[in-house]
């Protein structure tokens, strides 16, 4: 009996292959986008962990200075207290063509030593040569090639186990390159310590012990916000996909009511029937989930290079290009598919379970039933939105921001049917002629079947408006900021310090204003901090993009009494103009102003150059911003090139510098834009499927109208009109939601994730484009059912009056 019942149930799909395709596609889409995001996140995180491991920092705790660097003497003192520590000095070095991150380690102490010495021996070099001038650089083969192209003084050994972009060197070389002969970035606490040592807290209270796990995930912490962003998008796509699934499952069970009644009359127990339906769902979910996983893998592999570029551009985080298939990822993806499908089908299954034995497969009294559920939905939607605002006000942080966004979006979606219904009722009141009146009423009657698709459309459109507004606002702000920040006409980078000095003299002799860009890298409260030393030049006063400042800010900075801090640092530590900032023990400065510093994940401050040089006399002097009249630019560049042996790329004019920065910016949002578009595609598809699935149910309602004299062609036009109308109303409602979303992204999420707040700009033309896109989606979605309607055999319509349905 079970077999026969199963066959009967499954026969439905033979008659409705499109419905089956819709169901499978819905699940696959939901699973696919979600899994793609998960794959990207997992891969990126694995990359960070790998990099930490490759740099030998994964297993060991680290001693990090709260402020500034660790004096070399303190390292010796801690060693003499018995602690087994490995010193590390980090920084950035610019060789002729390119900058590199340098990690200097004591090759006799660091966990990496074994791998490095082996690599050197493999190259036929005595490993200890790395301790003597000219030293030796170790790098990933790709980075090694760049290092060899950029300099020839220090031999390079390639080692595939190192992360890209980092050059490892013995600390004797690193301290020379970084000009830090007597300070260290941090100390690795080696695993083997003898018992009975005095606690580090007592020996070095100014150093913070960072646990191995957090040390390994420094990058992970920095990029968490980015990954959370992606996850949110993945979840959105998943939810939109489930809307399709829910509608399809409900319809498939609804359409089998007759069969169910027959089967039950034949004696099939309800338990068995429900079980069979559940099994059917599970099989479909697993098959579709597997397809979704495959699709997700492809999407992830396609997006990963852009994600890598984004992460590298924003955070300097290394992500390798390759994507690997992880069993855990596949299992969790399938579980998501299964769970999601049952979540979406639960309502239909419960309804099935509770169905009276002989319930008629009657056409539902849709209108009344709907309005009740509209009100329930609207109430819970309103409550959700209120809850979201509450969360935002009570809690802080990125999670709260996303919780608010989630509540806002879902709440608005739940409110949608009631709003549209109200709109339609209002429209109906305006209707004068019977046909129009029927149209309004029929549309309202159709609403329950379409509301899920419309919700999906609403979410996709709102996300599009929100994210689009954020990206465009950011671009506008960023461009303006670049104009202010890159005020020098030409940027010159010397190949060496000697050349830097020569350049400075040459500029001086020619009476050209060249502003040196000199900095020293250190730490503030354990996090990286870059201290720039600036000369007192009117250009800063005129151009520098200050967000907030004391009245005589630049005078105070020039006098060495004050410091300018970037927005990230100010927000992270609640710094305001007027407060005190300790850059190093004994070096406390008043905060004179806060400047915007987009695209930089780390803290940065500006002090007067003389006061920086007093603390860090050896910092390189290779970068210059040159002020020159626009018509002199090309002459100046030519003169510099003639006078000094500088590679072309070491001299950049303002326009090129801006273009480069903008290119980095554009790449940053490629992934966001791609996900955005995919979500919109899913929503359009949802609209199509719901119209298609409604099509069969619509016949009983259309047949009487046809019988009264409306042609099939007129009816088809009406279908398209109705679809357009619903999409238009949804799009109009999506606009304010999208703007609230944009506000939340700009003022809540960005601040938490990146440390900067952006002004919001409005782009009505973009909205118009999106509106038209939504209408286009509606037309395309309605076209297929409409075409069918216009060509339907009149006999089919006549059957409506004859058949039971």
């Amino acid at each position, binding site marked *: 009996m079970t077999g026969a019942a199963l066959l009967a149930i499954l026969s439905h799909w033979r008659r409705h292959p499109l419905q089956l395709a819709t169901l499978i596609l819905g699940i696959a889409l939901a699973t696919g986008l979600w899994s793609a995001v998960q794959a990207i996140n997992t891969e990126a995180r694995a990359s960070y962990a790998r990099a930490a491991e490759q740099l030998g920092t994964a297993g060991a705790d680290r001693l990090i200075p709260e402020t500034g660097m660790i004096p*070399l*003497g303190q*390292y*010796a*003192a801690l*060693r*003499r*207290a*018995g602690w*087994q520590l490995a010193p590390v000095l980090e920084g950035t070095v610019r060789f002729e063509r390119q900058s590199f991150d340098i990690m200097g380690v*004591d*090759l*006799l*102490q660091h966990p990496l*030593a*074994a*791998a*490095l*010495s*082996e690599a050197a*021996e493999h190259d036929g070099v*005595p*490993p*200890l040569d790395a*301790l*003597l*001038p000219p030293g030796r650089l170790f790098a990933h083969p790709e980075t090694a090639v760049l290092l060899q192209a950029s300099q020839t003084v220090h031999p390079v050994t390639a080692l595939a186990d190192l992360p890209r972009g980092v050059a490892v060197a*013995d*600390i*004797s070389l690193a*301290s*020379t390159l970084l000009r830090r*002969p*007597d300070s260290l970035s941090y100390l690795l606490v080696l695993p*083997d310590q*003898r*018992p*009975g040592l005095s606690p580090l807290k007592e020996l070095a209270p100014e150093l913070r012990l960072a646990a191995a796990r957090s040390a390994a995930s420094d990058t992970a912490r920095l990029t968490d916000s980015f990954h959370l962003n992606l996850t949110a998008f993945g979840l959105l796509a998943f939810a939109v996909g489930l809307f399709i699934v829910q509608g399809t499952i409900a319809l498939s069970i609804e359409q089998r009511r007759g069969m169910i009644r027959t089967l039950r009359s034949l004696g099939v127990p309800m338990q068995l029937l429900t079980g069979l339906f559940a099994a059917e769902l599970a099989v479909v979910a697993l098959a579709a989930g597997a397809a979704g996983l495959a699709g997700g893998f492809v999407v992830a592999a396609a997006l990963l290079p852009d994600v890598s570029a984004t992460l590298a551009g924003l955070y300097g985080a290394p992500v390798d290009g390759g994507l690997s298939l992880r069993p855990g990822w596949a299992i969790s993806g399938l579980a998501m598919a299964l769970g999601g499908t049952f979540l979406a089908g639960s309502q239909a299954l419960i309804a099935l379970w509770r169905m009276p034995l002989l319930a008629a497969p009657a056409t539902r009294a849709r209108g009344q039933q709907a309005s009740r559920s509209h009100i329930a939905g609207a109430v819970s939607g309103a409550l959700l939105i209120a809850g979201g605002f509450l969360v935002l006000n009570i809690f802080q942080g990125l999670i709260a921001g996303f919780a608010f966004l989630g509540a806002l979006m879902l709440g608005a979606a739940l409110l949608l049917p009631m709003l549209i219904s109200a709109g339609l009722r209002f429209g109906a009141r305006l209707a004068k002629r019977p046909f129009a009146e029927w149209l309004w009423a029929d549309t309202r009657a159709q609403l329950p079947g379409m509301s899920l698709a419309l919700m999906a459309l609403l979410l996709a459109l709102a996300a599009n408006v929100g994210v689009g507004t954020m990206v465009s606002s950011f671009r506008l702000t960023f461009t303006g900021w670049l104009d202010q920040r890159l005020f020098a006409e030409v940027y010159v980078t010397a190949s060496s310090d000697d050349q830097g000095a020569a350049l400075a003299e040459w500029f001086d002799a020619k009476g050209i204003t060249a502003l040196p860009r000199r900095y020293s890298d250190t730490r503030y409260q354990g996090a990286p901090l870059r201290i720039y030393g600036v000369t007192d030049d009117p250009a800063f006063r005129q151009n520098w993009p200050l967000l907030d400042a004391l009245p005589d800010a630049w005078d105070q900075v020039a006098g060495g009494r004050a410091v300018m801090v970037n927005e990230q640092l100010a927000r992270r530590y609640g710094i305001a103009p007027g407060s005190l900032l300790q850059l190093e023990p004994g070096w406390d400065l008043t905060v004179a102003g806060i400047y915007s510093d987009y695209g930089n994940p780390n803290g940065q401050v500006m002090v007067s150059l003389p006061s920086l040089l007093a603390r860090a006399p050896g910092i390189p002097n290779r970068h210059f911003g040159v002020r020159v009249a626009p018509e002199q630019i090309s002459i100046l560049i030519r003169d510099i090139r003639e006078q000094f042996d500088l590679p072309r790329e070491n001299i950049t004019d303002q326009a090129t510098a801006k273009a480069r920065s903008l290119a980095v910016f554009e790449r940053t949002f490629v992934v966001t834009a791609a996900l955005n578009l995919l979500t919109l595609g899913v929503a359009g598809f949802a609209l199509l499927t719901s119209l298609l699935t409604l099509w069969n149910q619509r016949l009983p309602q259309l047949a009487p109208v046809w019988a009264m004299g409306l042609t099939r062609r007129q009816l088809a036009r009406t279908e398209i009109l109705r679809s357009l109308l619903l999409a238009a109303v949804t799009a109009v409602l999506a606009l304010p939601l999208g703007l609230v979303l944009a506000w939340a992204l700009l003022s809540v999420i960005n601040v938490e994730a990146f440390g900067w707040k952006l002004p919001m700009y409005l782009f009505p033309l973009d909205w118009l484009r999106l509106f038209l896109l939504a209408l286009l989606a509606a037309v395309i979605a309605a076209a297929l059912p409409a075409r069918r309607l216009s060509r339907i055999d009149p006999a089919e319509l006549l059957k409506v009056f004859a058949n039971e349905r």
Partner: protein
Amino acid sequence: MNAKFFLWAAAAGWATTAQPQSYAGLGTEAEGFAIPQPGTQLSFPADHGPHPDFRIEWWYLTANLEGPDDADYGIQWTLFRSALAPGEADGWQSPQIWMAHAAATSQDQHLFAERIARGGVGQAGVRAAPFEAWIDDWQMLSTGESLENISLSAAGNGFSYDLNLTADGPLVLHGDAGYSVKSASGQASHYYSQPHYQISGTLELQQGPVKVTGRGWLDREWSSQPLAEDQSGWDWFSLSFDSGGKLMGFVLRGESGDFTSGTWISPDGTAEPLAPGAFQAAPLEYSDVEGRKIPTRWQTSLPEKGVSVEVQALNPQSWMGTSFSYWEGPVTVTGSHSGTGYLEMTGYE
């Protein structure tokens, strides 16, 4: 003269395992480094300090100790200096590398530890006056003006010691006024000792702290080319007899024959260098140590002084499993003379 010609290799192989061929050839070239010269007058306290122009150098202290229950113990404290290039420079640019070994031995335990450090940054070093030699938290510290009174401490996993040493005899210069020849082809080192330490202090092993007393022997040696090319290892004895005399003797094992030498030290501290071949040592019994066959009982003799003694390891398993491994441990002496001492054996692969 003990000690690790391994050292150069030790430094050279901070990560690789010991390879016999990696140290064998190292004694021969000394480009840029100073070479020990006969007739050099050692001067103190300056020569207690480091000689960075020479490739290798060590401060090497061994002691035979006794607990309250007459149990015998031995300790070793060694600081090696190895130069990658001659001379000294500031900070990380220093070409000097330091390595230290510490060990504590009883009849049934042998515990050891190793430390490695860069020169120039304060993690390790030696100062001549007031004398101080240190690496991490291990130190040998003069409590007076010179080497006569020193305190010595080290700690590793499972052991530590804190000892006070007082010399009751003069420094001993080996060879020709401290110029000690190491092979028939002329390799040599500068070499002196303070073999007259009386010791008291605390030794802590796994079972807890023990008050100990005993005697100690400090060796100081520096060179740039200490081994001949064919020499593969050595057996080195420092023996203190109950009668008051002391004997330092070594056998350098080479393909073209063994080279032996040493110093006889009278009870009053007068040193007599031994002619090559005067000192003799022959293994009597081998033990399985870490998969190697190592002689742990010896017959040694110095006929011209009427010495013919059996030297027996206190703990045959005194293996130093450090970056460069060797056998080093306390011994007891019986026969024509009785006493205690230390034995070091290298090159047993």
